């Protein structure tokens, strides 16, 4: 199988708890080579990884701010270089928070408006850039609706209005929370995120921060395989670039 040639890295911090889920999905569902990247280790061979996943969980117990301590770890120093080198990175849930804290994505996460840990299926709409050059959504139609689970306490995305306006104009808002019919409203906003933002691209579109968990929705048996569309996009992009 050609897929065997694709190599993915998955970071592991103290308190990561979706690392095994991601490992399982990439290895057993998508048939990739997967390597764990330990938080204390640097890496310099950027060619070794076709893409890197920063998985969800509660790195360092969410102390100080969610993702704040992991963002200062050694592996993140390498990941910053990897990103500058054009490497593809997807941060899921806590991974998204870590990307924000490390400055690779713009903005910050606040506590959910409900003050509750929100654990449920939500719908997100692919509202951002989705041309053939986007590794994360190249196989997903514009405005397509995905059903994915969320599980977080601090997913209330915040940025200054000026910044948000800019992100929209640059097509960097990847996904917005919506209802099953695709309507973006306060009712369909699970955490209070500004403009229902649930997913965000970096300015070069090689980075995606995503609050819902695609790895938990990559097989029909899990209730939805919409998450597979994101991983399939990455695989398609890596194979054809």
């Amino acid at each position, binding site marked *: 199988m050609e897929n065997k040639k694709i190599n993915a890295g998955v970071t592991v911090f103290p308190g990561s708890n979706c690392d095994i889920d991601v490992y399982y999905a990439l290895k057993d569902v998508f048939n990739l080579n997967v390597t764990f990247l330990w938080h204390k280790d640097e890496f310099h061979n950027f060619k070794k990884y076709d893409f890197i996943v920063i998985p969800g969980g509660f790195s360092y117990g969410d102390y*100080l*701010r969610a993702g*704040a301590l992991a963002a*200062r770890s050694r592996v993140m120093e390498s990941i910053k270089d990897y990103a500058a080198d054009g490497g593809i990175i997807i941060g899921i849930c806590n991974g998204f928070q870590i990307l924000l*804290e490390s400055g690779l994505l713009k*903005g*910050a996460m*606040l*506590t*959910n*408006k*409900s*003050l509750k840990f929100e654990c449920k299926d939500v719908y997100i709409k692919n509202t951002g850039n989705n041309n053939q050059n986007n590794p994360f959504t190249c196989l997903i139609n514009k405005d397509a609706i995905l059903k994915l689970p969320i599980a977080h306490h601090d997913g*209330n995305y*915040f*940025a*200054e209005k000026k910044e948000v306006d800019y992100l929209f104009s640059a097509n960097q808002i990847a996904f917005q929370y919506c209802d099953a019919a695709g309507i973006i409203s306060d009712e369909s906003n699970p955490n*209070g995120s500004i403009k229902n933002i649930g997913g965000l691209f970096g300015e070069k579109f090689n980075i995606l921060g995503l609050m819902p968990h695609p790895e938990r929705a990559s097989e029909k048996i899990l209730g939805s395989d919409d998450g597979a569309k994101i991983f399939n996009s990455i695989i398609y992009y890596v194979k054809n670039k």
Partner: protein
Amino acid sequence: MIERYSLPEISDIWSLKNKYNTWLKVELAVCSAYNKIGKIPDKSTENILKNARFDVAEIEETEKITKHDVIAFLTNVAKYVGEDSRYIHLGLTSSDVGDTSFSLLFRQALNLILSKAESLAESLAQKALKYKHTPMMGRTHGIHAEPITFGFKLLIFYEEINRGIYRLKQAVETVSCGKLSGAVGTFANVPPEVEKIALEILDLKPLLSNQIIQRDIYAECFYALASLGASCEKIALEMRHLMRTEVSEAEESFSAGQKGSSAMPHKKNPIVSENICGLSRVLRSNLMSALEDIALWHERDISHSSVERIITPDSTILAYYILHQLINLVDNMVVHEDKMLKNMQLTKGVIFSQKVLLALIDKGMLREDAYAIVQKLAHQAIQTETEFVILLKNNADVLKYLKEDEIKNLFDINYYYKNIDCIFERSLSLFPIPDSYKAVVKVTLKDEVLDPQGKAVLSVLKSSGFNNIEDVRVGKHIELTIHKEKQCKRKEEENNAADNNAADNNAADNNAAGNNAAGNNAVDKIEKNNKYNSDNRGNKKHHGKNSNNQNIGKLDKELLGKELKDISEKILSNPLIENFEIEIK
């Protein structure tokens, strides 16, 4: 005390409100003690502890009628407690409450002064270490004696202030006493057990008293303040001398917009130092009054009370102000190291006279003869403004005992500094500088960022009946302990790379100077002392044990503030959504 010298944190201690608060504390401790021995029922005690309070304005009104402050106070408290107020002040005399409270208030003030004094000691230590190798003239009777370093002078101040701190701690210990033994101290109407329990609650020791606490106790506190003031005056006086136009070796900082004289625009005067010298006189005269308060009639009279009302707030507020001023003075003083060197050269090298004398005796000259020659040539050097070393080299009697080279080598300033490390090590092991700073970083969400936690707390407050609360914001309070030595080492490593080049250049310059100056005279030697300075800083290997102390001194609060700002900006807060505030303790 007039407002000009009153810093709020200490003058608040002497406010009426704090006084009545302390009285109440004592009365309540006594009630708790009576409760413990079964004299006041639990329910009444509970009621008293819960409801006892006072209103300052109301007490003042009542006092106009009673002409007795403690009674006015008790009447007011009774109003809030109700019937159970009959248990308050049981078997006590006014002085039981007044004196025990006086001790508590005095202790509160002394502790505040203590922390200021510790801060002054630290400022002095930092500067002493900074100028450890800065040569200056030692003067006795105002006349040039032998070389010292500016750091050495400051180290003496450091030790002295530490002794002042010791005396303050002693005074705190001494003043931590109370009396709750009734009208003439015989426990006729209040059991000793009550005094014991109540004083334990207040963390005070009992002592044998008549109607009042004996006044030698407080006189000791006034001595601690007066002597600390005198030591501060000594430092300030030195600054005034060093700032004199003819000396100009150090000066007080002069801020932008500051004016020295209404008539003479050129003036920069030692006003802070003069202020300290003046105020410390008041501390001393208050001590006299405190000593006079010791002798009272029989089991007490009230002649001491009016005096204490004035001198206790005044002396504590002034001591605190003096320390505050002196810390600013020390932290910001301007030191003219070049002028110190220049002044050392004023006396043409005669400051080496003792070395010459000892060398001549060592070579076999009679002491009397040697003294006469050295004295004659030294006086001649000053009168004729000729280098002492040249006069020695041209004197036949001297040359009989010393070769030219040997004479030249006597004029080595490093000779006086060979034990400077040992001196510093001894002082700093006797009075170690605290090795860490405490800092607090407060992180709060920016105003424009919604705070769901705050909203939740607000709704709970409202549902608990606190309807007047309009908004709640929840933040983080982060306490950091910063080890100075380690922090400095880091700074030093960072600086070392930059310093290395500079040090190499220095060494080259010094060699060149040494070769050129064939007819080495004292002036050369002293100028070369710059080398001594840089050598000691560059050559850390020789100072193994001491380098720690040096490190501690090199860290100033400004640097620390910078680093804390860095930490707070980069890690402790997310500047996008949060603000932070830093407080160094």
